[in-house]
């Protein structure tokens, strides 16, 4: 049993931790304040959401201070189960993710302040409550230091986001998406429950400190890790547990999609790191193979399905699946290296993972918010009805372009940095002591590269079809740019993408405390310059984004200047030439289906394609194509049928008559008595 005193216990002076908890409470209060006048858009939008954003930035600052300090703060709050008060802990690992939560949610909250309006689903005040509870519960997940408060926070996160997803619950498809989300969340939660059950190692102590101290046998430790991987993988969207993601993300309002994709998925990465590298202590190398292979599979799978989507938010959801794959690939590599006694490379892979989480938060939130602005301006989510919005919505278009280029992994933006780090850690893998893994690693590098290139394909499709070309519908001419709060939110996230891309060295310096905590070493800096990232001493490997950007800008501007100075002709605007065809209409552009056609063709076996072609004599020709995931038919539908059969069998004992149930109770009592007598 527990013998911890139920009062405030201060180990180090937990100033920052208390501050963080206060901010989480502040979020809760803001959320409750929304109930004062639930129908008021002004209160929620102009006051509460911006206030929530401020708290977010404050949280990022506090957690950033803790990260730079590198210390560990503990706090025990007298709430929770009798004998198990809520343990909280602020260490470098949780600090990183708190910075991510605070900084990214700040931008999203600002945008949300301008986004939510009356008459769209739930009342703004109610949304404000759910939204801020969601934020606070994510914060609590990151701070929790015992299994009970972790799981309570985890469930609060799932529930609050469930209500946010089903904001427009009057639509049947959104209710269905919400149900699927809740179902997968709970399948994951059960796995986590079991994982923590194994982790406590029979001691009955559910604090994380006790789990760190528990000595599990190799088999149990592996079981705990695999259960945790399943549980967190379901939340992260690891293939094949990703099926809720493309349903729930489009259903939710865009700021919520941004929050779920940008931040919530990262709590799952946090969880895997926490269990795999912290609670279980030193990982066994082959554990890492599971996240590594699943991650690689997820990268390619997500990218392929993103390329064939026709709904812009579904496309982004699959792109999130791909990016989660990259993060889990990094986790897997970290564990393989850490388990093989190569801490320096493990630190590099861990760094790539953390960096990618930060990057993806900023860029995917930016893109989701961009689609939100488009959705508000046009009322369309279908790529086939968009186009040419760069003329009508220049702010959204140009800021989204930054996110588009970043997520396609182009230097000098942020997406490139994490991919560069990840590829570097793949390249240094050739010294692994396991022959089989040595063979797997090049395949891994190839798949990561393929995924990155496919991401470029997806992003060209995404951006080109929404913002470029001619408007595909007449109504798009009336589209308007977003408001000033939304612009600030987008600007902040775009700025994040640029800064994370340009100053990797400073970010890596700050992340040093985490790599020290988890794999016991930092990634060294082999170069004396502040602008040059050289993560491996002895190997001439370096990347300097600031110089890269300066050189690119210099060359481009010089070209423009020379052309301007020497060019003597004028520029004339005429109707598009189109090889002299003459009657050019918006229908002649590629649709989203058309742009995805090569991928559909090349990777046909991956997709379940249902095609409806018009007959030659058709008076109203109609072309329809529906693409589904095979995984539904192969895995989920048989599974659902099996569960249903089992439930039906079990239902036979339910007669609905009180006398039968009394008989059951009596029989149970008898059996229990017999057992008690026998033992």
């Amino acid at each position, binding site marked *: 049993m527990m013998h911890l005193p139920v009062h405030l216990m201060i180990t180090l002076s937990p100033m920052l931790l208390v501050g963080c908890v206060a901010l989480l409470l502040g979020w809760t209060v803001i959320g409750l304040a929304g109930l004062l006048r639930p129908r008021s858009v002004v209160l929620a939008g102009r006051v509460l959401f911006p206030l929530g954003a401020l708290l977010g930035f404050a949280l990022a600052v506090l957690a950033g201070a803790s990260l730079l300090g590198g210390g560990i703060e503990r706090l025990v709050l007298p709430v929770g189960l009798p004998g198990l008060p809520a343990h909280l802990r602020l260490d470098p690992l949780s600090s990183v993710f708190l910075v991510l939560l605070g900084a990214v949610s700040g931008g999203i909250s600002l945008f949300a302040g301008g986004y939510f309006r009356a008459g769209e689903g739930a009342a703004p005040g109610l949304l404000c409550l759910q939204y801020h509870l969601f934020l606070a519960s994510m914060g609590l997940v990151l701070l929790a230091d015992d299994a009970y408060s972790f799981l309570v926070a985890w469930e609060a996160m799932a529930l609050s986001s469930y209500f946010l997803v089903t904001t427009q619950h009057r639509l049947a498809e959104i209710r269905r998406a919400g149900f699927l989300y809740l179902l997968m969340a709970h399948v994951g939660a059960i796995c986590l429950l079991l994982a923590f059950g194994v982790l406590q190692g029979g001691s009955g102590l559910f604090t994380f400190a006790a789990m760190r101290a528990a000595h599990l046998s190799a088999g149990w430790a592996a079981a705990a890790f695999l259960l945790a991987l399943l549980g967190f993988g379901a939340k992260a969207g690891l293939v094949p547990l990703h099926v809720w993601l493309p349903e729930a993300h489009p259903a939710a309002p865009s700021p919520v999609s941004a929050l779920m994709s940008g931040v919530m998925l990262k709590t799952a990465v946090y969880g895997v790191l926490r269990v795999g590298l912290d609670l279980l202590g030193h990982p066994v190398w082959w554990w890492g193979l599971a996240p590594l292979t699943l991650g690689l599979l997820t990268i390619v799978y997500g990218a392929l399905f993103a390329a064939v989507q026709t709904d812009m938010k579904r496309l982004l959801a699959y792109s999130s699946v791909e990016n989660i794959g990259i993060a889990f690939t990094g986790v897997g590599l970290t564990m393989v290296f850490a388990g093989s006694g190569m801490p320096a490379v493990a630190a590099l892979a861990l760094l790539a993972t953390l960096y990618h989480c930060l990057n993806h938060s900023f860029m995917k939130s930016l893109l989701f918010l961009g689609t939100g602005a488009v959705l508000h301006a046009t009322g369309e989510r279908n790529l086939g009805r968009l186009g040419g919005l760069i003329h009508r919505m220049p702010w959204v278009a140009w800021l989204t372009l930054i996110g588009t280029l970043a997520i396609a992994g182009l230097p000098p933006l942020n997406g490139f940095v994490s991919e560069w780090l990840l590829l570097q850690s793949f390249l240094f893998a050739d010294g692994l002591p396991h022959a089989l893994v040595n063979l797997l690693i090049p*395949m891994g590098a190839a798949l990561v590269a393929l995924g990155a290139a496919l991401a470029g394909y997806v992003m060209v499709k995404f951006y080109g079809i929404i913002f470029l070309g001619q408007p595909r519908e007449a109504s798009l001419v009336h589209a308007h740019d977003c408001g000033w709060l939304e612009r600030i939110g987008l600007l902040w996230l775009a700025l994040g993408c640029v800064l994370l891309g340009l100053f990797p060295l400073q970010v890596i310096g700050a992340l040093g405390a985490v790599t020290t905590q988890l794999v016991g070493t930092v990634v060294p800096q082999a170069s004396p310059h502040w602008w040059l990232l050289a993560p491996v001493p002895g190997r001439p490997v370096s990347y300097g984004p600031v110089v890269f950007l300066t050189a690119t800008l210099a060359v481009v501007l010089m070209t423009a200047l020379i052309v301007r100075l020497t060019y003597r002709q004028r*520029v004339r605007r005429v109707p598009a*030439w189109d090889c002299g065809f003459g009657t050019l209409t918006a229908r002649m552009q590629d649709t989203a289906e058309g742009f995805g056609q090569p991928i559909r063709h090349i990777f046909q076996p991956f997709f379940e394609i249902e095609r409806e072609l018009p007959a030659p004599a058709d008076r109203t020709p109609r072309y329809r194509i529906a693409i589904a995931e095979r995984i539904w038919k192969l895995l989920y539908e048989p599974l659902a049928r099996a569960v249903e059969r089992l439930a039906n069998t079990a239902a036979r004992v339910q007669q609905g008559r009180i006398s039968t149930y009394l008989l059951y109770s009596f029989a149970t009592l008898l059996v229990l008595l017999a057992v008690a007598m026998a033992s």
Partner: protein
Amino acid sequence: MSALEWITQVLEVAVALAAAPVFLGWLNQCRAWLQNRRAPSIWLPYRNLRKLFHKEAVIAENASPLFRIAPYVVFGAMALAAGIIPSMGTQLPLVVSADAIALVGLFAGARMFMTLAAMDVGTAFGTLGARREMMVGFLAEPALLMVIFVASMLSSSTALPVITRNLASGHLGLSPGLAFSAVAFVLVLLAENARIPVDNPATHLELTMIHEAMVLEYSARHLALIEWAAQLKLFNYVCIGFSLFLPWGVARAQIGPLGLLVAIPALAVKLAAAGAGLALIETLSAKMRVMRIPEFLASAFLFAVLGLLVHVLLGA
């Protein structure tokens, strides 16, 4: 970082800018000879550029600023790439900031701007070209990366000059991993530069064209920049090939006037041979159907991965 290194750096870009059109002219000349045609002048690409720079620019009414920026970005990216690839010297100050992965990223960035610009006006040809270009790109890019990885693992570095220096100092002849990569690289080079059998630079037939379809809406100075960038891209790819598979003649140590005296003729000889070789490939092979291109590129990708596997297995 001495002044001499910066001079080399600028010289590399200048030589690339100057030599890229001539290289294309030479390639076309060789092709004409092989096909029993009268060859056009080797200076023809220059004359074309000059002509284009003196024309009035015509832009579609609904073109966005992106359409006008793209040619400069693409050209700038290719010029910068020329500064990263060790075509003559290996002491390049810029290379510290941009290794081979960044180089592939630079190519990807140029491709992305090009395709976005192609989609900007919203013509059927533009989007068709953009789609096909991305189809080529998403398979060619990882293949190129894999090719570079084999060389990187051999040299423990992803910086091209370091790789070149290392490979040039080694024994003559390719390691087995690198041999597979070389095959993959040639396939990638053909695909990325819109050469036969993937694309036909001389055609304007919509069934087959890729690169041409994307640039149909461009004219005058914008078209000139794009054409020049395309020539630079070909030149850059050929030079990447030299630095990975034929690294001889490149000035390895501190470059001086003497080093350049060797490096420039060596580059010229290699370019002449490469141009003739490319012309031969283009003459011997036929243009493929568009949907066969993925198979072609998938084999390039497989060869590259095979190269990496061979390297890991044999440790060479």
